[in-house]
């Protein structure tokens, strides 16, 4: 997708989410109301198929195009598995499958595949109870299992999204194909997807806090005019800017390096860094907004709670940190600087 088309798509998506994905929709999902119409419209816009080739009904966008859309979705706390479905559909298409309609999710974990049947259990599968399909990579195979052939125990997250434990017991697959990516790589791409959603959410947190502090008046003047608040918000801005920068850098490296293994080090670094900064971003934004931002009434928690959950999804800062740390230690002190400038690691 050229820059102009992408910018146009992002603008359209941004406007669409602003209009159709308000506070009530996000709160509704937390109460267990599936936003059927929102999902339908998202599908009509073609967003879940953005990185799928045209001959399979998609928009032939790149991985970077898809990730850019997910960043926008993150900045609206879109409470449906758009990210999971978009990545699943990309992986299905790359495995010579044809993506179906309906919400899907990624069940990435220690599963076994025997012939056409999947067994095993995966915890904390996002949107497990609303997904119509579970997509996974086992060894060299990509497997798709429909919801009726899986057993889901709902374990809602602290962000109020319907995560769950998914068990497969010799479950028949709807589709099995040769996967274009390894199981580890699928997990890496999922981490990158979350990092970009975190970038979007972080951005929204900053905008929300800045706007609030400009409007909120105490001691007869907007609190944004107090130096203490200005310093806090400037620090918040630096963490938010770093979160966006690191996710975008990884997105670019992954896209340019190819789906199979591009930007491996960058993704590990980006997810580690995004997860690391999530706490500071949440803490400073809540501090700057006082009691108001701590209420359920306000929207700030839609974003801070997601940051807290997303930092754990698909590898926390410690998970990815351990991978980078092991690789850096293995290469020794002389390998450190070349690794930082080359952005490659073999973990």
């Amino acid at each position, binding site marked *: 997708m050229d820059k102009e088309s992408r910018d146009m798509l992002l603008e359209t998506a941004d406007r669409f989410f602003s209009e159709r994905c308000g506070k009530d929709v996000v709160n509704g999902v937390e109460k267990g109301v599936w936003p059927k119409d929102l999902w339908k419209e998202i599908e009509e816009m073609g967003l879940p198929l953005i990185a799928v080739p045209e001959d399979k009904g998609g928009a032939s966008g790149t991985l970077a195009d898809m990730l850019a859309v997910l960043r926008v979705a993150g900045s609206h706390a879109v409470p449906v598995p758009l990210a999971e479905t978009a990545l699943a559909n990309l992986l299905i298409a790359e495995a010579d499958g044809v993506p179906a309609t309906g919400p899907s999710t990624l069940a990435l974990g220690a599963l076994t595949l025997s012939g056409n049947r999947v067994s095993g259990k995966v915890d904390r599968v996002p949107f497990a109870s609303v997904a119509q399909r579970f997509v996974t990579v086992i060894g060299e195979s990509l497997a798709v299992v429909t919801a009726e052939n899986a057993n889901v125990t709902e374990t809602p997250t602290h962000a109020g999204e319907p995560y769950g434990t998914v068990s497969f017991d010799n479950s028949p697959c709807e589709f099995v194909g040769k996967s274009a990516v390894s199981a580890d790589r699928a997990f890496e791409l999922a981490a990158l997807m979350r990092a970009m959603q975190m970038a979007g959410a972080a951005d929204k947190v900053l905008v929300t806090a800045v706007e609030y502090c400009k409007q909120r008046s105490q001691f007869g003047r907007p609190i944004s005019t107090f130096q203490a608040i200005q310093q806090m918000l400037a620090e918040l801005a630096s963490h938010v800017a770093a979160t966006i*920068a690191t996710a975008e850098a990884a997105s670019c490296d992954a896209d340019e390096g190819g789906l199979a293994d591009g930007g491996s080090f960058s993704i*590990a670094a980006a997810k580690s860094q995004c997860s690391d900064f999530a706490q500071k971003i949440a803490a400073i934004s809540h501090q700057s907004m006082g009691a108001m931002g701590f209420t359920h009434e306000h929207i700030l928690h839609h974003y801070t709670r997601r940051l807290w959950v997303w930092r754990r999804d698909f590898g926390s800062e410690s998970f990815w940190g*351990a991978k980078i740390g092991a690789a*850096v230690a293995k290469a020794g002190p002389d390998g*450190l600087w070349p690794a930082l400038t080359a952005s490659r690691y073999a973990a």
Partner: protein
Amino acid sequence: MSIPKLEFPPFHLPDEAEALRGEVRAFLKETLPKVKKTEDRFSSWNTPSPDFSRELGKKGWIGITWPKQYGGSERSFLDRYVVTEELLGNLAPAGSHWVADRQSGPLLLRFGSEEQRQAILPRITAGECFFSIGMSEPDSGSDLASVRTRAEPVPGGFRVNGTKVWTSGAHRNHYCIALVRTSGQHGDRHKGLSQILVDLKTPGVTIRPIINLAGRHDWNEVTFSDAFIPESCLIGNEGDGWLQVTSELAFERSGPERFMQNFYVLRELVRVLGRQPAKRAAAILGRIVARLWTLRQMSVAVAGMMQGGKSPAIEAALVKDLGTIYQQDLPEIARVLAESDATTEEDMADFLDVAQYATMMAPSYTIQGGTTQVLRGIVARGLGLR
């Protein structure tokens, strides 16, 4: 969304710059063991070595972007970025020429007279002429416009009186560019300020050490007592000092030295943790590396913006803020980690000495080149808060 976007568009250094990286690495591998040892155990951009700077000058890598007629190589700003980050990443003692290469030379190139350029720039690029910064005074730190040093016009030049402080390397360097008041009164703020080129051997200029808390003599107090500075040493126009000095600050803030000054701490940490650290130790190490990697992505992005003709002042302030806080966190995280996870007791003890020194130096990072308080003020202005 009504606040300006703080974006750092991913930027790849071009192939020529990456090719230069290889050359710089090969040169450093060969040269670093040969240059005269400095008193510092680990070197960085504040470790002087005239010997090393001369060798670097021979390669054409000081003032690398400047016109050939002044000894430069007319290469891109991104080539310069690669040279500077390789010096830092390989712990080269780059302190002698650093300020001249980073800001004094570019300032002369932009505002200096032809005579000044011809007299000074080729000596800088040869690695033989070193500069100090003459901005701060006892009563002027963050509020730079309040400088009191006065250069009174007299026949043929100026008679200068006043005091500059925190003047790094003045006892070793050849010149200092001083911000002085040439007209008007103290309260006139930005008006009536000028920059002058001061030969540090000038009669009436006295240099006294200011020792820092780590016992190092980097800083000096530079006192002017009726020092005569010839008219030919005025840089740019009389009264344009404020405009010039703020353009100089942009060079001072945006470089990789703001997060690579204590890179040796991380390098040594990798050494003492050994090739197979425990998972917990690897995780902490990896998180630090991820943070540094992110800073570098942001810094390279800023370099890309500058190469593209933009002036990313807010972005540069942001990177300096994040980078210097990282440099302060690093010795603390590393100290605790080495205590629990260094492979041998001997390594642990040695590393704790390294970390102790790094901890003592750390307060300077968030002060020099613009305090964190001032930088956050710049960012706050960028957010529309003031």
